[in-house]
């Protein structure tokens, strides 16, 4: 075990204390008249303007795990790990097409979750339930991985405990971090991560800008960095600076599949629905790429870690530690503390929003729809707050009790699973043509096929779920399983809808009207709507 890096630790703890205070004070920020309503705790009162939404979404989507995992993938595989860049380039033009419609219809009808919309549109409680459960299932391992991000930082700081340390001592800093997070999320709801996101994003921008200028100067320029990375990949006989021709499909399908999945995640939808107008949503799709640029630069840090010799000669080096270690090696101690604070706080913001989103899903689409239909908005808020605590405890148990690899496997699966809700949600935003049972069957087919295919992939690190790409039937190229499963899902949904319409199968009522999908804040549709109606 290494010595504790005291200056870095002090800076880290100071920033952590700052955001803790902010988290608790956030409950007073833009305080609402009706604090008992789920719209307040779970969506920040649906009041965030363009800039708050930009910080919130940036803090929400670009997580600590992203900061650690994207450069780690580049460190380990080279060009293949860079797919995160085309993924985030594609994502915003793609969602520009449908997110404004989701915002409008949710605002008119008071929907808090994507599953709320599905129930309102198709009238089908089972379909809404599976959309909600898929969301919760995909979010849980994602929260757990935020802990992995904090753990990586604590390890490099030297406070993660050695191999021989007692498990309690070893994980005590993690317990404290998550305990504090749970407490202010409980009391302040979505306002806490929204406020903390300002600090997080500012820190991240500062650290990345300094890193991509300062580290290459110390390492002898980008030319030298890419040369030594190429040399490394040659010697290791793994990875490369460009994509091998037979992997180009994998690269493209991973980019498009991940882009489609991004705004199916409940925590992304929560960030979007919390904005105050349709215009806010559209504007954000145009300014979010600032984060993508940062992510691209961050990915390059993987090459810098190679050039700096991080982990060189260490057998089975954990690539997740490569970037935190690079920071510790290159920066003065105090700035290492700033960089680690960026990663640590970068874990807290998404973890808070994800637990709120999962809690909203449970409360609205399981508790209210199935267990207690008479629940008042105050009941909903109470349940959601409690569930947000449970979700975090669950994630903690997950990380401590299970293999870390299991969390990574499940997060990969989570992306694949959440993509299977795309047909029902995005399809529903444009047409009521699909039959709800056809969508249900398509979802089931995609889930089973994707999970089964992923189960069959082994890698060095794990026997099952060792990757996310397999041969695409009928095309013969290797592609992202999630996209293949999505295609199957769509084919099943279309085919069965044709059959069910041919036999005139009964259709359930649709509570939405065409004009709901283009409503803007201040419109008649909104002013006349019986909203905010968290209770139907």
């Amino acid at each position, binding site marked *: 075990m290494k010595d504790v890096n005291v200056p870095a630790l002090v800076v880290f703890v100071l920033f952590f204390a700052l955001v803790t205070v902010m988290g608790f004070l956030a409950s007073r920020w833009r305080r609402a008249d009706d604090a008992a309503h789920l719209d307040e705790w779970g969506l920040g009162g649906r009041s965030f303007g363009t800039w708050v939404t930009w910080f919130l979404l940036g803090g929400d989507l670009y997580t600590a795990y992203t900061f650690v995992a994207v450069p780690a993938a580049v460190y380990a595989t080279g060009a293949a790990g860079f797919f995160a860049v085309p993924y985030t380039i594609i994502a915003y033009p793609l969602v520009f097409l449908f997110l404004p419609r989701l915002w409008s219809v949710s605002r008119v009808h008071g929907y808090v979750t994507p599953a709320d919309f599905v129930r309102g549109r198709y009238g089908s409680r089972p379909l809404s339930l599976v959309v909600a459960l898929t969301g919760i299932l995909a979010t849980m391992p994602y929260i757990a991985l935020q802990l992995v991000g904090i753990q990586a930082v604590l390890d490099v700081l030297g406070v993660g405990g050695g191999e021989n340390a007692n498990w309690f001592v070893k994980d005590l800093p993690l317990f404290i971090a998550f305990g504090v997070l749970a407490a202010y999320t409980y009391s302040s709801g979505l306002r806490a991560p929204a406020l903390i996101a300002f600090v997080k994003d500012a820190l991240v921008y500062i650290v990345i800008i300094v890193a991509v200028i300062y580290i290459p100067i110390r390492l002898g320029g980008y030319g030298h960095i890419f040369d030594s990375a190429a040399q490394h990949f040659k010697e290791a006989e793994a990875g490369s600076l460009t994509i091998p021709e037979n992997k180009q499909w994998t690269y493209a399908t991973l980019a498009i599949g991940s882009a489609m999945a991004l705004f199916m995640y409940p925590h992304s939808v929560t960030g979007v629905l919390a904005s105050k107008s349709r215009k806010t949503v559209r504007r954000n799709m145009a300014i979010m790429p600032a984060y993508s640029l940062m992510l691209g630069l961050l990915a390059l840090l993987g090459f810098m870690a190679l050039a700096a010799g991080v982990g060189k000669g260490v057998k089975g080096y954990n690539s997740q530690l490569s970037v935190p270690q690079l920071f510790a090696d290159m920066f003065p101690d105090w700035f290492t503390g700033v960089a680690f604070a960026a990663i640590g706080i970068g874990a807290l913001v998404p973890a808070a929003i994800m637990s709120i989103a999962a809690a909203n899903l449970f409360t609205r689409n399981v508790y209210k729809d199935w267990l207690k239909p008479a629940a008042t908005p105050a009941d909903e808020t109470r349940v959601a707050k409690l569930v947000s605590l449970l979700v975090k405890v669950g994630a903690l148990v997950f990380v401590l009790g299970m293999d870390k690899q299991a969390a990574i496997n499940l997060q990969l699966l989570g992306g694949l699973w959440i993509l299977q809700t795309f047909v029902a949600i995005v399809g529903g935003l444009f047409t009521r043509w699909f039959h709800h049972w056809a969508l249900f069957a398509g979802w089931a087919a995609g889930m089973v096929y994707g999970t089964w295919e992923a189960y069959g992939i082994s890698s060095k690190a794990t026997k099952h779920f060792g990757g996310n790409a397999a041969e695409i039937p009928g095309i013969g190229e290797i592609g992202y399983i999630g996209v293949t499963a999505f295609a199957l899902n769509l084919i099943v949904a279309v085919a069965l809808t044709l059959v069910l319409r041919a036999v005139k199968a009964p*259709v359930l009522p649709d509570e939405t009207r065409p004009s709901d999908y283009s409503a803007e804040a201040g419109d008649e549709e909104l002013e006349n709507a019986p909203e905010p109606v968290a209770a139907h």
Partner: protein
Amino acid sequence: MPSDPPTFEDVMPEPAGSPVPAVTPERVLAGLALLVPIVAMLWVSSYDKSDPAVAGMPFFYWYQLLWVPVSAVFTVAAYLLITRDEKARKAARKGGAR
């Protein structure tokens, strides 16, 4: 109308009585502006090479990084076009109601 099966008219629905057609030049152009970055990024073979490098950075990397701001420009264009289109629709709706 629970028993009425919904129809294809639900696709891109228009508020009743709107005199503006569903397909306008603004909407088409906005759609194209959004499509360009998606196609450019999915066409992996067009940028999967090392040369020409810029300041030591292989083509593969600087080209994709360059597309980040370029894609934002296209999205801003789509935003402006759609905003214009929605204004025209709103005006037409108001005019129609009078």
